[in-house]
């Protein structure tokens, strides 16, 4: 989530809050009807949001463990969810090819705005202070600039699995199903770097940038986590996390600390478990 806690979600319809450093489960949040596909925490650690295959987006209170609000409106699975900086808006991207912005403040049941420009399911959403970055299966990375009132759409080609901003806000990293990570200049859409070597063809795998934008990391389907030097594009490191697909990655915001989630392919009981790791990337 941010530094101190780790939030996992899985097909057991629940979210779990962990202390990644100690490896202790702090709390379990139950209330989703189907598997939970993504979760995020607010800046002040007071709220959580999650989304799942039940087409809902839920806003949780961390302390009480109750669902504060549930937003229904997506027509399909909700793939990804993000808070904005002040946790006033939840941005969720769904397989119904829309990105919806939900208001946390008011009691409005419908989204503040629906960004329905995507032609296919939205696989990843990131929010900066004034931008919404969405990656879609139609192979486009769309950046909605609220301040400028512009929509930038960059065509990548193959379905996007994950997008993320660089810490300096200049670049956007997009992982796509052609086993390539691309670093795009945010303003012009030019390709700054391309990172290959891992395997990403089927799963929705995460990509990350390290805490100082020095390295690009990506999960892989071969059970490793790969790291590339951001500038040179050379493979810097590959971490053998597990045997099967590493699905989720998240980097500590300040410390060189990585969370990688791998799939224990155990009869679909539980798709994801997170392994807290303290290694430096």
């Amino acid at each position: 989530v941010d530094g101190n806690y780790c939030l996992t979600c899985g097909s057991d319809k629940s979210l779990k809050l962990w202390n990644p450093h100690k490896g202790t489960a702090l709390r379990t949040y139950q209330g989703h009807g189907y598997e939970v596909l993504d979760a995020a925490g607010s800046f002040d650690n007071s709220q959580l949001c999650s989304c799942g295959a039940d087409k809902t987006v839920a806003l949780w209170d961390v302390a009480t463990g109750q669902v504060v609000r549930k937003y229904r409106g997506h027509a399909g699975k909700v793939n990804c969810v993000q808070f904005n900086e002040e946790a006033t808006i939840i941005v969720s991207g769904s397989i119904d090819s829309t990105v919806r912005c939900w208001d946390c403040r008011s009691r409005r049941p419908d989204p503040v705005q629906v960004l329905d420009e995507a032609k296919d399911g939205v696989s990843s959403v990131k929010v900066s202070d004034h931008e919404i970055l969405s990656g879609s299966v139609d192979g486009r990375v769309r950046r909605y600039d609220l301040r400028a009132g512009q929509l930038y759409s960059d065509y990548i080609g193959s379905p996007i699995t994950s997008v993320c901003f660089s810490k300096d806000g200049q670049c956007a990293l997009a992982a796509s199903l052609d086993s390539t990570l691309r670093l795009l200049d945010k303003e012009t859409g030019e390709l700054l770097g391309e990172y290959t070597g891992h395997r990403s063809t089927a799963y929705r795998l995460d990509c990350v940038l390290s805490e100082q934008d020095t390295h690009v990391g990506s999960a892989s389907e071969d059970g490793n986590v790969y790291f590339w030097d951001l500038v040179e594009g050379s493979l810097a490191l590959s971490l053998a996390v597990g045997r099967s697909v590493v699905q989720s990655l998240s980097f500590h915001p300040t410390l060189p600390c990585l969370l990688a989630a791998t799939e224990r392919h155990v009869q679909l009981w539980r798709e994801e478990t997170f392994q807290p790791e303290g290694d430096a990337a």
Partner: protein
Amino acid sequence: AAAESGDSEEEDLVSYGTALQPLQEGERIKKPVPLQEQTVKDAKGRYQRFHGAFTGGFSAGYFNTVGTKEGWTPSAFVSSRQKRADRTVLGPEDFMDEEDLSEFGIAPKDITTTDDFASKAKDRIKEKARQIAGVVAAIPGTTAFDDLIGPSKITVGVELLRKMGWKEGQGIGPRVKRKPRRQKPDPAVKVYGCALPPGLSEGSEDEEDEYQPENVTFAPKDVMPVDLTPKENVHGLGYKGLDPSQALFGVSGRQHLNLFTGGSEDTSNLLGDLRHSKGRKLGITGQAFGVGALEEEDDDIYATETLSKYDTVLKDEEPGDGLYGWTAPKQYKSKKRSEREVKYIGKILDGFFLASKSSTPSKIYPPPDLPRNYRPVHYFRPVIAAGNENCCLRKALEESTGKIGSDTTQQSRHALNASQRRERLGETGLKGPAPSVLEYLSEKDRERLKEVKQASEQQMKAKILPQQSRNSRFQPASPDDASHKWQMLLGGQLANAGSSDFKPFARNPEKQKRYESFVRCLKQGEKDTLEHYLDPSMTEWERGREQEEFFRAAMFYKSSNSTLSSRFTRAKYEDDVDKVEVPRDQENDIDDKETAVKMKMFGKLTRDKFEWHPEKLLCKRFNVPDPYPDSSIVGLPKVKRDKYSVFNFLTLPEPTTSVTQATNENIQQNNSLNKAKKPSRWDVSDKEKEKKDSISEFISLARSKADVQQQPPVSATEECGTGPSETLPTEVTNEDKDQEEESRPSMDLFKAIFVSSSDEKSSSSEEESDEEQQPTSSVIDSETTKQVDLPDSSSFSVQGKIVAASTDPGVSLSPTSKQELDATEEFGPKLPPAFSSGRFCRLLAYKFCTLNRKEKHRKHREKHKTKREHKHKKEKKKKHKKQKNKGKNKNKKSEKDSSSDTADSSDSLSDIDTTGLSPKELLRR
């Protein structure tokens, strides 16, 4: 000492100075004026200046000094900072007396008439007249300027007159003797009063009256010039403002008002009256003011304007006085010329005289003699046979013999056919050859018949179609009704024009060309020639595919067009209907982006930049100022765009290798409308496709099932009859079905469902659909009794299809929802079951729409189709709402519970049935 001496001896005393006035009784002794106040003033009340008098000087003050009691003090210092503006520079004029100014060459400050301009002839009369005129005038004093500005010099005429002994105030002319008895000028006669000073003149007159010296001649009386003032106001003619002389002095008795409101007369009158009415009370009289309380004569005041004073009848002025104004020239006009001439002679103007010689009479040409054998009946030339090939000939004829040609055209107007008329009218020609009656049939009928019959049976077809169309009442294209035909032709023309606009293959110009020729061909009904237009270089399979495509395109366009044009008059701006809201900025072609990506040329090539309007609240929540504060748009701005811009509704069927199960072609064609819209859903995203396919599969499956049951022989015959060109497309489309079938559960499931649920309700719906189909099928039957059973079976097929269509929704409502539930994994994101079933109903509605060709339905469907482009669920939801609003409860009902399908779906079914039926029923009536 003097006083003492005076006192002592009073007689011889000498007194000095003036004695004081003796004090009167009771008068207080005046206080002596103190010395400081004893100042000397000149005649104008100014202080006499003593000190420095020759240099301007200054007035003496206290004790005749410039100082005060306290002594001379200069004026206190006043800072010029605050009142800088007040500081005035004093010139020498400020210290000078006014009368001295001119001496020192300083111009006078007020306007005076200098001697140069002062009129030398200053007669008092004029002045007085002016005075009074000034009073009378609307703005008093306007005439004052006349006094100021006069002629600078005595004119030459005056000077001459003077030299001749004329004096001012005298009249001009030979001196006359006064008549002994001189009457006062009669007011009624327009003699102008004398210009002599009134007192003098009258006095003199009086004197003259009294004694007249014999040999004294007098100068004639001066005549005041008539004051011919132009009429500048908007008052009525002769209107005069209330004369103050009359009003004020009560001269009501004087009624004569001459038009010449010369000041002179007025003055004289006025003056005289003034004198006369001295004793009278001043009062205001006249109608304007009413009567004063002290007025005696009040009989006249309320002078009622009786209507009898006015003419109530408009009639010619009574003749007799001979003075016909210009307003009554009637009598003159009615009179003959000779009389007029006579009259004219009577009043010939000066300087004109009658012509001695009358003008030459105008030449009259007698009408030509009629030939002896002339009959007053027009003989027409033999009409040239109307026809296309004769057109040129006739034109040439027209040009050569203009009149006869035009005669023939007039004559043969009814003999012309439409194309010739069009040519005459200069309208743009049809693209193809002259359209046949087939043109006016709805596309669907045509298609069906075309497919049913082989190319050799064209004639028969042409016979049937008009009849059928007449019976079905959809196409009131009766060939005998010429005017209607004409109208229809125009409609067809329009449609043709539209079809030329409709370019589904705009991307591929070659293909588009082929398509156009294909359409043209189709219109002609030439089935066999279709192949000519296909690309010869293509493989057979490709050709077939393309032809199928063309069929669909043409059908899609034509079906909408013909149905519209048959039932309704053309809207002026039909484009609005065809327009649909699409995002203004489409993400441009992916192909070049693909290449760009391959070449790793990210940047401009891969980037699309749009204007995007975030929601205001979103901006607020993001703590970002709204980039478009005054726009109400949210999201991407939309523009209206042509609905038919892209080949949206017709997609290529996916080529698959498995070719099986030849369903009959009739159904293919009959359902082509369904087809046309079905693929439109295929070209949306994969998930969508899957979802939709899962639904459409049911329909197609049910359909094919029904077809298989009912029509195996027909299909066989047809396939062998129509040849490869027709079988290929069917195969292709069948492939679609096969493909669909591959990914769906076994047929048994559906069969089971069909059997189980559709028993009672399908029977009812069947009845209804039978009813619906009754007319057409019967028509076909009656027509084709003599024929082979081909058309008959076709009618059956229609029936069967409809049955299938009407049965399967009710049936498959439950399976779809079930299946949706089951197969979420397979079909991507699953829809809520209610949703899908609702859509199902819509599909059904489409079918009925296409059957009934009800315009509303059609539009509805189109809307759906186009909206499906956007393929967003949100919009679909909206659509649902819309449908609900339209009062078609099917969605609502089916959405509510799709699980309890039997009752509900039958409900919805009946709903649809009624909606589907009603237009037809209406039509039948």
